[in-house]
């Protein structure tokens, strides 16, 4: 035994132990693990990780992973453990192994500083039209859903709080206390509404088969609690409160002492994942997808035609403006455009001191973004189609004494539309699928609904098949409709 220690040390020196892979989502925001102003990685969890690495005598490497995919990723074996404000709840306990908790969280309702209508969740629920922002896949989201309060979900706390401040699309944010402490507390335009509620535990998640590692980490967490390092980290991040005293009181987490008294009421109804339960939700998402497709495509057509005309027949100025439009909107990713329209516009309105709100609703922002983008494509399609009508058609009409506008309207345009139809239909089907991008502006369309349902039920395959069928059920008839239309509109080819 005595001989073994120097031997191990020697081995350790010669060959550093393989690092553990830790997954978290930097995009989730402060104070867990995030990028500070200098773009360095910081966060109270990062500090805990460093302390754990020291305790375990093993390096720990960070892996970026979307928050709401942490548990599926863990089960898939993409990393060794997940630590990212992961709340212990019954549903997760059934799938993964949790470590001992390292923080006792509560939920904090935050409103704008001038909010007079309510200062509790109940008050908020009774305020007509009030919407509460929260994050995907969090305990806060579950609690709000359970309380049947209208919500809007974001993929980061920053998005939620900034939507509350500058855009005013939502009336409150209900999220974990640490987030409220980092964002809302220093912001004079926000206030804490009421006391923090709904206590729970943050713990590290492991694959259930990785008991060995889990035990090691449990021991390391115990050590951090005993030697006061955990406390000093929490104090440093302004997260230490009287609740945290309980962390070191062993009785909470004895061998079988899983915290089953925390969040059970939500769980019973979540057990039954039958088709009856999620099909209506997917259909709801489908409806949003259809509406978004139709509205944004209508916009693309309405903008695309004048653009193509400007490019073909406009004055030199108009021509270059139209070309600029086409190059610009064709050249930037739709995703960027949507982000700008949704989060950027309100910020611009605010910083420029304009007294108007540019806070677009998710649906309007998505319609605009997709519509503006596809207008560029339609403009080019129309231009090519108009140009491909033979010159002889112009001359024949001119020789009959028809004017330029009349010729265009009666002779050229109808033929051009027939030429453009196959391409336009193709674009429509492409747009139909591109609507899935709208999920970044908090619009729950079909694809987003699938993600939400699949991530919480882990039924990726079953739900994926149903979702794919729903998409196909729409896109295939769309293609057929186009072919019928093509025939109908081309009587000369019968």
């Amino acid at each position: 035994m005595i001989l073994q220690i120097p031997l191990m040390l020697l081995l350790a020196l010669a060959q550093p132990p393989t690092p553990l892979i830790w997954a978290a989502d930097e995009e989730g925001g402060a104070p867990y693990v995030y990028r500070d102003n200098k773009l360095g990685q910081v966060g109270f969890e990062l500090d805990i990780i460093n302390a754990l690495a020291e305790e375990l005598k093993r390096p720990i490497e960070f892996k970026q992973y979307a928050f709401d995919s942490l548990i599926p990723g863990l089960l898939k074996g993409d990393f060794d453990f997940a630590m990212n404000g992961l709340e212990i709840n019954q549903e997760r306990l059934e799938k993964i192994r949790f470590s001992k908790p390292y923080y006792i969280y509560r939920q904090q309702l935050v409103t704008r500083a001038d909010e007079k209508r309510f200062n509790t969740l109940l008050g908020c629920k009774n305020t007509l039209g009030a919407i509460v922002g929260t994050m995907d896949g969090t305990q806060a989201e579950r609690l709000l859903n359970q309380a049947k309060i209208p919500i809007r979900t974001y993929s980061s706390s920053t998005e939620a709080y900034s939507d509350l401040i500058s855009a005013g699309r939502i009336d409150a944010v209900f999220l974990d206390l640490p987030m409220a402490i980092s964002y809302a507390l220093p912001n004079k335009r926000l206030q804490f509404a009421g006391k923090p509620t709904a206590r729970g535990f943050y713990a590290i998640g492991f694959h259930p088969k990785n008991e060995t590692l889990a035990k090691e980490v449990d021991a390391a967490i115990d050590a951090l609690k005993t030697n006061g390092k955990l406390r000093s980290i929490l104090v440093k991040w302004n997260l230490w409160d009287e609740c945290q005293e309980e962390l070191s009181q062993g009785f909470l987490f004895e061998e079988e002492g899983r915290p089953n008294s925390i969040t059970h009421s939500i769980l019973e109804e979540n057990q039954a994942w039958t088709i009856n339960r999620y099909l209506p939700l997917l259909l709801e998402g489908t409806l949003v997808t259809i509406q978004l497709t139709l509205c944004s495509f209508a916009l693309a057509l309405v903008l695309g035609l004048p653009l193509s005309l400007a490019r073909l027949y406009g004055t030199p100025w108009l021509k270059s403006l139209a070309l600029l439009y086409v190059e610009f909107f064709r050249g930037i990713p739709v995703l960027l455009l949507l982000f700008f329209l949704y989060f950027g516009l309100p910020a611009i309105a605010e910083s420029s001191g304009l007294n108007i709100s540019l806070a677009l609703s998710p649906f309007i922002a998505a319609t605009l973004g997709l519509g503006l983008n596809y207008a560029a494509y339609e403009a080019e399609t129309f231009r090519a189609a108009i140009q491909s009508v033979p010159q002889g058609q112009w001359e024949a009409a001119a020789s009959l004494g028809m004017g330029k506008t009349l010729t265009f309207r009666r002779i050229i345009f109808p033929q051009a539309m027939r030429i453009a139809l196959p391409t336009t239909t193709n674009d429509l089907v492409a747009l139909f699928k591109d609507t899935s991008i709208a999920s970044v502006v908090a619009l729950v369309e079909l694809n987003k609904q699938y993600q939400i349902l699949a991530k919480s039920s882990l039924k990726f395959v079953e739900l994926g098949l149903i979702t794919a069928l729903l998409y196909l059920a729409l896109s295939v008839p769309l293609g057929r409709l186009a072919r019928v239309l093509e025939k109908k509109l081309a009587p000369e080819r019968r």
Partner: protein
Amino acid sequence: MNIKAREICKTFGKRPILDGLTLEVQSGETVVIIGPSGSGKSTFLRCLNGLQSIDSGTIQVGDHKLEASNEKRFSPFSSEIRKVQGMIFQDFNLFPHMSVLGNVTEAPARVLKHNQAEARNLGLELLKKVGLESHANHYPSQLSGGQKQRVAIARALAMKPKVLLCDEVTSSLDPELKHEVLDVLEKLKNEGMTLLMVTHEIGFAKKAADKVVFLAEGKVVEEGPPQQILESPENSRIRTFISKLMS
């Protein structure tokens, strides 16, 4: 209605196409223009109809005048001269998305503002004239080349022109279909229509033309009655050209 073209010049880039062309056509005359490829025959007809600008010279058709103009500012849609001139093209240029009757009634209905019934009656009457009244509801793609060209003639006639400009109207037709178009044109001639035709149909020229004009390098080389130009031309180039056409 008579046509007077004086000293017409037209260049494409640096290449002269029409080089001081002068030609007169009397009202009711049928004039056939012949000449080698690239001699400017088609360009001349297009200039006469205002589809192309001229660099210098004057064109007068009845009371309507066309002046020389800058090509860049030129719009083929502004010409008044088409109120008295119809044009028939080699490739028919029918409107493929409209029925035969629609092709014929489009301009009278939209430009002359005839009401629907008027335009329709006129259309059917003209289709009867070209022997296609039974095809009124067909689409151009369902017609043979000869039928298409006859529809194009009916379409041009619908605007009541005094002059018809025919640009190689039988060139893309099979030989057995040419006569049905030429027969219609001969009928029009007999009704008093002024015809100015670019064609290679020597037989038709001999039978129906009042005057044959030989064009080369953008100029009139020789003009005169068909017998003179086609059978005993003074210019040896015409002889060579015609013997090639006949072979």
